[in-house]
């Protein structure tokens, strides 16, 4: 299957706009479930407003949140897909820039020291593009995540040591949720990276934070931590927007990687309640959009 870079550019543009407007069904279901369980009156009002906002965005064809985020594109290339990799990356970048200019949404991207905004949501190494490969034949998948800064600003890495064990991981996650308070726009998905190198650990936390609700860590040890930590963080009472209540997090997601005998790294990256993402799947028959 040969991929035309013009189609990739169009999809990259479309994905950014879709991600900003349509919340994935798993997040909507998660929000309704939290609202049904919530016992605090203020928290229930807050969740009710969030649910109203989702339908207002749909009815008015508007963005869910004003934060257009840092654009991230995750690409999975299946077997038998033919394309020029450099051209594909350029096409994604152009699509991202065009979405910003043509839709007239806010470019949230600036140079880190001069703070100059090019007003096209791009800059050095941004959009962030991750490329991986899958076994799926004749399929190219592109996922777009506009990562909001309220949650991204609350990211942590701790290079714990082996003698501190799993207790260090659990304590760190609980303390990060406490420190984040209302700043991350809770209820959040708390993404936890366990193991790897420092950079891999932080990357895994991001993968975990942006995974669909209801999905599970492929490593049974990670899945066990997910179940324990999900129940635990909602016992803290931080609540939606940090105003108190039961609904601090939709879930805690964990991703693991093997690590060094001397290391025990743990990272936390959070996703806000507007947990936006969109996906395009290229097959021989055409392009399908989803989440």
């Amino acid at each position, binding site marked *: 299957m040969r991929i035309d870079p013009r189609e990739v550019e169009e999809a990259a543009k479309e994905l950014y706009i879709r991600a900003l407007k349509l919340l994935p069904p798993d997040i909507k279901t998660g929000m309704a479930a939290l609202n049904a369980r919530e016992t605090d009156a203020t928290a229930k009002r807050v969740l009710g407003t969030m649910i109203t906002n989702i339908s207002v965005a749909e009815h*008015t064809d508007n963005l869910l949140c004003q934060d257009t985020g840092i654009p991230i594109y995750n690409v999975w290339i299946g077997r038998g897909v033919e394309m020029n990799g450099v051209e594909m990356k350029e096409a994604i970048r152009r699509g991202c820039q065009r979405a910003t200019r043509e839709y*007239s*949404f806010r470019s949230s991207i600036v140079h880190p020291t001069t*703070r100059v905004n090019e007003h096209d949501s791009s800059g050095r190494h941004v959009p962030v593009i991750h490329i991986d490969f899958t076994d799926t034949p004749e399929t190219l998948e592109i996922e777009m995540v506009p990562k909001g800064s309220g949650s991204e600003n609350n990211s942590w890495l701790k290079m714990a040591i082996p003698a501190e064990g799993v207790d260090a991981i*659990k304590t760190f996650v609980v303390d990060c949720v406490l420190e984040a*308070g209302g700043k991350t726009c809770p209820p959040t998905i708390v993404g936890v990276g366990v193991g790897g190198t420092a950079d891999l650990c932080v990357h895994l936390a991001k993968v975990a934070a942006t995974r669909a609700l209801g999905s599970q860590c492929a490593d049974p040890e990670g899945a066990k931590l997910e179940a324990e930590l999900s129940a*635990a963080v909602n*016992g803290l009472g931080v609540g939606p927007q940090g105003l108190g209540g039961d609904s601090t997090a939709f879930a805690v997601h964990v991703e693991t990687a093997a690590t060094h005998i001397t290391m025990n790294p743990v990272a936390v990256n959070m996703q806000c309640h*507007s947990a936006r993402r969109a996906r395009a799947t290229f097959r021989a028959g055409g392009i399908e959009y989803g989440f």
Partner: protein
Amino acid sequence: MAHHDFTAPVSEHQVRALRVNDTVTLNGTLYGIRDATQIHMFDRGRKTRFDLRGHAVIHTAPNVKRVDASDEHPSGYAPVCVGTTTSDRMERFTRPLMLQCGVRIIIGKGGLREASAAAFTDLGGVYLAIIGGTAALETTWVEAIEDVDLDDLNPESLWKFRVKGFGPLLVAMDSHGGSLYTEVKRSAQARRAEVLARLGVK
């Protein structure tokens, strides 16, 4: 837990009457302000031509569209999506914003800290919590962008919005030392040991 309808500018007396858990709905003028706006105003000495005395500001950098100036869009900007950002980053600007510009109401999400609480008490100010991430809804409360200043900082310009039925917003920090964020933080911290014990942490 009273409800108040405000049209800015408001007096110190009106703001001091507010208590945590009251609600407020705003009509009329609302100013939008952000990190860069305040860095330039308070660290680099830039002045605004707007008179902010008695007014409300919201922590925002909106999505806007350039249009021809008209009665509907006096500033030449149409609002596309107006929402609220995390206030905590702008903690150190609360006092100068009140002292130098006379602002009485700050609207934001996630709350401010002790220095802001002290400024609200000393100078007569209040923090109103809006629900972060609900910008589509918030935008329906914005009638127009009337004017804009410091626009070289776009999107972090100083925006003058005209709003209608903007709220209800929750009084989360008042001028009597009350703060819902401090209360929640204290009680969450008190539950930490129990939560860790349940996780089997020794």
